[in-house]
């Protein structure tokens, strides 16, 4: 896809975000707004925007925020079991970063008209979703390495494509988030490489972790979907299709995984030079559907933990929001 911003030098700067004209129908406003987006325009929180666009951005950012918040739970289970102090510091920093990302993203979402409390209510009641990869157990320290390296890598491929989102507050937030995620990938890769150069048992643990995580990783970006029917693409909330993201992930990471002697558990995986794309066994979309609707192996346990954490910290929120006592 041609980057619309690449045309700026010849077209000049984008016009000012269109507002809804008096008496204009929502459809007519949307049509003018779409033309503005197609010309590379970006939208700020306080700009007028059609309801359909506002809802689409909110839905997208809310699921992203939910995933950051829930995504720390698999890793937090290993904070107290990290093998060295430095690993523990690094993992703690990563968990802090991800919670921070959730804070930044909920803030972006709140400006679109849904309160943080409502978003947490919906998440904990199972009415909204979080990414599939956070519904699985972490069985060994190798899982911590595979998650930080490959789950974060698959995520950053998607997130880098969001730095040019038409919704500018999201785009700016993604620039900060991508910068931090790049450190997580280093931390994860370092754990994995350390383990594969360790004992036979450590090496086997990494391979076993990869075997378990490969399926969810291939499902993570979602099934192929036609570009022309995707409103998030049309409105430039995101820039790339699921399949484009998966292909890029494979292009960068398959060589790096194989380089250290790990075997990817997909006998059909190969790069098709003629078609110029990766071929792979069809990911298990039934598993993806089941997992993201909270029927994954750890879905209930993770939500229960998050509910507990929310209940236990209610007094802090109450204290902050309480009116100041008269002196």
């Amino acid at each position, binding site marked *: 896809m041609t980057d619309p911003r690449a045309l700026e030098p010849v077209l000049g700067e984008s016009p000012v975000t269109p507002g809804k004209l008096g008496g204009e129908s929502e459809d007519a406003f949307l049509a003018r707004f779409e033309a503005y987006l197609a010309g590379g325009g970006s939208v700020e929180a306080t700009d007028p925007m059609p309801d359909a666009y506002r809802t689409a951005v909110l839905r997208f950012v809310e699921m992203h925020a939910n995933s950051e918040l829930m995504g720390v739970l698999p890793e937090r289970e290993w904070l107290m079991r990290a093998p060295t102090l430095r690993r523990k510091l690094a993992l703690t920093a990563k968990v802090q970063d991800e919670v921070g990302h959730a804070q930044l993203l909920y803030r972006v979402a709140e400006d679109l008209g849904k309160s943080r409390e409502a978003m947490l209510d919906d998440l904990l009641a199972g009415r909204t979703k979080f990414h599939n990869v956070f519904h699985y157990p972490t069985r060994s320290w190798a899982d911590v390495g595979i998650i930080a390296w490959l789950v974060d890598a698959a995520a950053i491929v998607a997130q880098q494509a969001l730095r040019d989102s038409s919704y500018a507050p999201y785009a700016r937030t993604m620039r900060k988030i991508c910068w931090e995620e*790049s450190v997580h990938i280093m931390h994860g890769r370092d754990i994995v490489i350390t383990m594969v150069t360790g004992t036979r048992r450590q090496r086997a643990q990494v391979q076993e972790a990869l075997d378990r995580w490969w399926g969810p990783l291939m499902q993570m970006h979602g099934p192929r979907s036609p570009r022309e029917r995707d409103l998030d693409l049309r409105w430039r909330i995101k820039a790339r299709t699921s399949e484009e993201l998966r292909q890029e992930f494979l292009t960068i990471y398959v060589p790096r995984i194989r380089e250290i*002697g790990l075997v990817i558990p997909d006998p059909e995986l190969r790069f098709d030079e003629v078609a110029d794309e990766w071929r792979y066994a069809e990911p298990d979309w039934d598993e993806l559907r089941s997992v993201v609707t909270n029927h994954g192996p750890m879905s209930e346990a993770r939500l229960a933990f998050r509910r507990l954490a929310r209940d236990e910290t209610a007094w802090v929120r109450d204290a902050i929001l309480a009116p100041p006592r008269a002196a």
Partner: protein
Amino acid sequence: MTEPGPAGVLEPWEVFRREKDGDPMRHGGSVMAPDAQLALDYARELFGRRQESVRLWVVRRADILDLDDPDLLQPPLDRSFKKPGGYVMRDKLATARDAAGQAKPRARPR
């Protein structure tokens, strides 16, 4: 809008500007003005006369919360695990590659 200050007293206002659609607001400079309206007018004259800004924010300097405590922002501890440079994998990677009998991968297969 901010409350008007005492009449006739000039005070500094900080001006933040967005250069083009989608950019972050960046500090541009400051103006002296006796009230919010004149601060906006001066900001427009100084930072918006050549169409170099698509948006300005003008904030009374006294209203800005300032934090520059190095103990909080630049603590003298090793935080290298929070930075990409904190992970040096070259030698380990070469060992892993040798053990696996793998060559260094090409940059990208396409």
